[in-house]
């Protein structure tokens, strides 16, 4: 697997101990301000401004507060967090210490994807070594009176547990089902306490930002999507792997870098993302355009796009937590519709009804899973109408 280390942000030089000690010598408000100025938005997919999140969690009242790292990495086609967890564990934990200091948390939890159990030993060793060096525990990183430690919680393989409130339910020992929001985790999170949940990459990026400054970070990316982002690139390209690119890179340029110029479409953002067709390859990958948590799946010229849509929809029907009506039966109904299309038995009228159902799911589902489940289906249908409807559909 290719690992393009461009040493822009995430893979650039940083000594965690030094960075932490410097950061914790500063005021909380100043640090949060720095993160805010940098324009950093969450790297887990939803893109919520990290500075705002930490500020809210910091302002929330609570006897206990928590920092939770979302390392559930379940989005199909995403594996960049795995690389970070393997090679930059200390950076991650450092970022969590920083967050804890900013919001006033005493406990940190890493929610680790079940399939990543094999990383557990390494992570625990890193934690132990950091404790020895007083980068965790009492008077953490040289800050008198600041105590913080981290433990690791193993997930059990449900995609929906990557959704932050389902993740918290799972941490509490319940069925992994998203909660109603509001209230949000920043005020009512794990055990009902204020909780900041962030992606692995977000924590690491934040540590770089406080060390090197918001201005440095903003040199990369666009004005609305600052900085760089890790991409997990897979599919029909010459050089699949993990890449760091500045935000705002065009799909075409990205394809050039990974050797996927032939592609007829690219799925940006995994199963819950959008299928971008050739004529849209000029669009940029950024929060304001085509947004992603990092997954890029390249489809070569011979791919059957209906199969792609089917594959994604099977995933959602399988992974829906089953709590709310639109997602529970909507995913199933769309999947049945795709099968009808496959058998050339889907009348246009019904197809329109299915698209309309998809639109309902996008706005009426309880959580992001159901809300994004129809995305791939709808965008593939839009972009590959001719391919999919090449044959008469009966009636």
């Amino acid at each position, binding site marked *: 697997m290719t690992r393009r280390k461009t040493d822009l942000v995430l893979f650039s030089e940083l000594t965690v101990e030094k960075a932490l000690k410097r950061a914790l010598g500063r005021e909380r408000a100043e640090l949060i301000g720095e993160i805010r100025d940098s324009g950093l938005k969450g790297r887990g997919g939803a893109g919520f401004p990290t500075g705002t999140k930490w500020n809210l969690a910091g302002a*929330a*009242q609570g006897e206990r507060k928590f920092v939770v790292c979302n390392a559930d990495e379940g989005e199909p086609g995403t594996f960049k967090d795995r690389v970070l967890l393997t090679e930059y564990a200390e950076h991650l934990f450092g970022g969590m210490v920083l967050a804890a200091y900013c919001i006033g948390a005493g406990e940190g939890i890493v929610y680790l994807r079940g399939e990543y159990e094999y990383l557990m030993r390494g992570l625990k060793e890193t934690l132990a070594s950091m404790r020895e060096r007083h980068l965790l525990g009492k008077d953490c990183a040289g800050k008198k009176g600041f105590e913080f430690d981290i433990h690791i919680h193993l997930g059990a393989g*449900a995609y*929906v547990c990557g959704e932050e*409130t*389902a993740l*918290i*339910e799972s941490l*509490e020992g*319940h*069925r992994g*089902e*998203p*909660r*109603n929001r*509001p*209230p*949000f985790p920043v*005020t*009512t999170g794990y055990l*009902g306490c204020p909780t900041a949940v962030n992606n692995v990459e977000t924590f690491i990026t934040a540590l770089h930002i406080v060390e090197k400054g918001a201005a440095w970070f903003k040199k990369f990316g666009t004005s609305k999507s600052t900085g760089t982002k890790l991409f997990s690139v897979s599919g029909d390209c010459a050089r699949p792997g993990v890449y760091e690119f500045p935000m705002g890179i065009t799909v075409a340029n990205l394809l050039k870098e990974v050797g996927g110029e032939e592609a007829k479409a690219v799925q940006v953002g995994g199963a819950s993302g959008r299928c971008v067709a050739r004529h849209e390859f000029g669009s940029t990958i950024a929060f304001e355009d085509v947004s992603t948590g990092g997954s890029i799946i390249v489809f070569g010229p011979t791919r059957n796009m209906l199969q792609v849509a089917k594959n994604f929809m099977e995933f*959602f*029907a*399988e*992974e*829906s*937590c*089953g*709590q*709310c*009506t*639109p997602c*529970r*039966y*909507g*995913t*199933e*109904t769309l999947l049945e519709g795709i099968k009808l299309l496959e058998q050339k038995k889907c009348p246009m009228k019904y197809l329109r*009804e299915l698209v*309309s*159902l998809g*639109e*309902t799911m*996008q*706005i*009426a*589902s*309880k959580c992001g899973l159901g*809300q994004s489940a129809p995305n791939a289906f709808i965008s593939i249908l839009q972009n590959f109408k001719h391919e999919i409807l090449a044959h008469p559909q009966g009636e």
Partner: protein
Amino acid sequence: MPAKDKNNGINGSDRAPLSQRRFKMPEIRDEKDLGAKVKITIDDHDLEVPFGTTILEAARTLSIKIPTLCHHEDLCVAGVCRICVVEIEGQRTLQAACAYPVTGPLKISTYSPKVRKARRHNLDLMLKHHYGECYSCVRNNNCELQSLAKEYGVDFYRFGHDDKPHHEVDRSSYSVVRDMNKCILCRRCVRTCIDLQEVGVLEAVNRGPHTEIATFNDMPLGDVVCINCGQCINRCPVGALRAKDPSDEIWAAIDDPKKHVIIQTAPSPRAAIGECFGLPPGTSVTRQLNTALRRAGFDKVFDTNFTADLTIMEEATELLIRLKKALVDKDKTVKLPQFTSCSPGWVKFCEHFYPEFTDYLSSCKSPQQMFGALLKTWYAEKAKIDPKDIVTVALMPCSAKKYECNRPEMTSSGFKDVDYGLTSRELAQMIMETGLDLPNLPASDFDDPVGEASGAGLIFGATGGVMEAALRTAVEVVTGIKTEDIFKNLDITPVRGFEGVRYYEIPIPKTAAVPELLQKSLGVKTFDFLKGATLKVAVAHGTANARKVMENIKAGGKFAEAHFVEFMACPGGCLGGGGQPIPTSPEIREARAKAIYAEDAGLELRKSHENKHVVDLYKEFLKDGPCGHQSHHLLHTHYLKRGKRIV
């Protein structure tokens, strides 16, 4: 008020997941938000609501109807059916009105095109897997899904419709029938069983379209720790849960000329059954019902309050015996507090979850079962009818009574003491079948020989009622002071109300001689052993509250010091029972309670020990007084230490 204060300083475990629980609102953490008002607009109406009000609540104050399915006033918010979605200006997604707290100015539309489309889609998706036909459904005409299908003009099944069942109907329980083909996964039953009752036999399993409500290991309901309370039935919006209906068998008995069919009616159904005939909640139809039952073909109509009075005599005597053994005989093995045993749901709860405490339960049978045993012995003899030809039916507010009458212990007459437990809903159905217009029937009295009963028996129907009835008798017997001279109008208000747990202390300033009727059982001539003592009593309703009291007792808290505790499995007591008319809500239960207390207040006879039929029964039949030999045989029972075992 936080639940902590409501429940007398004790709190149990909160077992339901947060996603399915309690909070109305991000707790108000900011001083300035306390009592703050927020300006919002709903469908062009401007209004101000307190910070944290849900959109649903706000809309209701304007009488704007937002449809709901998973929402229930007794339960925590779920936000899962999505039928209540509304559009908020500036937000990409629709929001569930039941789950969305107002914390800032909002402009809300409750029937925009997007909203209407989404609701219709939700209904279509629910109907896709809803297998059942309305005309053969117990909830026909009283079904929330059916009403919505009509309101939203469902005229075809957009996404198909199951044409065969996908689940077998579970009829294993004596009380509750589960037909999961009709389930729409609103999880009201789950929240009821976990949150309200803290039994927890129902839970959602599997994911996506395979999600279903299941028991532990998908075992038949009859084989799990279900206490048969039927609270889940009362909160199911559709016909997926229902009580096991014995009306066909009862009609057959009525139609059989050789059978002498007797019905006893409990007070709670009488205060509620009118709801099935369009009367407002809290309309008591006791005496019209007597007429209806006779016209329907029952040979005799008796009042369960008679055996409620008898229960008080037995249970109060049992308590005095326990107190005497503890105080006079210094018997260390005596179990105190004594627990009431007339709620079969509570009894099974205790047997399953607190098996080490079954000896604390009063050995008295419930009024229903006492009546059954007497009908097939004393009454049979008196009326010269062969008990094998007597069929006893009990009109009860309760689904657990169906289980209770099938317990193998309940055959002390030599027959099945009570043949059928019939719920208010089922009797309403039977009456409808006769075409009788219940609300407008002439009034008539109960049949002799037990025609008149006391108001003490009547108030058994409300939480705290058994305690109040027992106190009306015990206080008077022990102190020799008329109870009405201590409690104005004979209303013992401290044990009334709907707080989950109540606790009350009554000092015993002086003592009297033991009445002759009790002397044999007690073995002393005066109540001197209680002089200067303080009687401590407690009341809990809903098994979640029962659990709190039990945990407190286990931990040696203040409830361990009590002498007598009333436990009712159902929220509100029997008037909120699992066999009562649907829907149920705090207001409906309050109205029913009012009807019961009003009826009691209007009676001459309001103390069990003054019921002359009871006094006569001891004289002519039970002979050696309450808790005597004959009583023990017919009116008392024993319990099983079940634990998680299903016996």
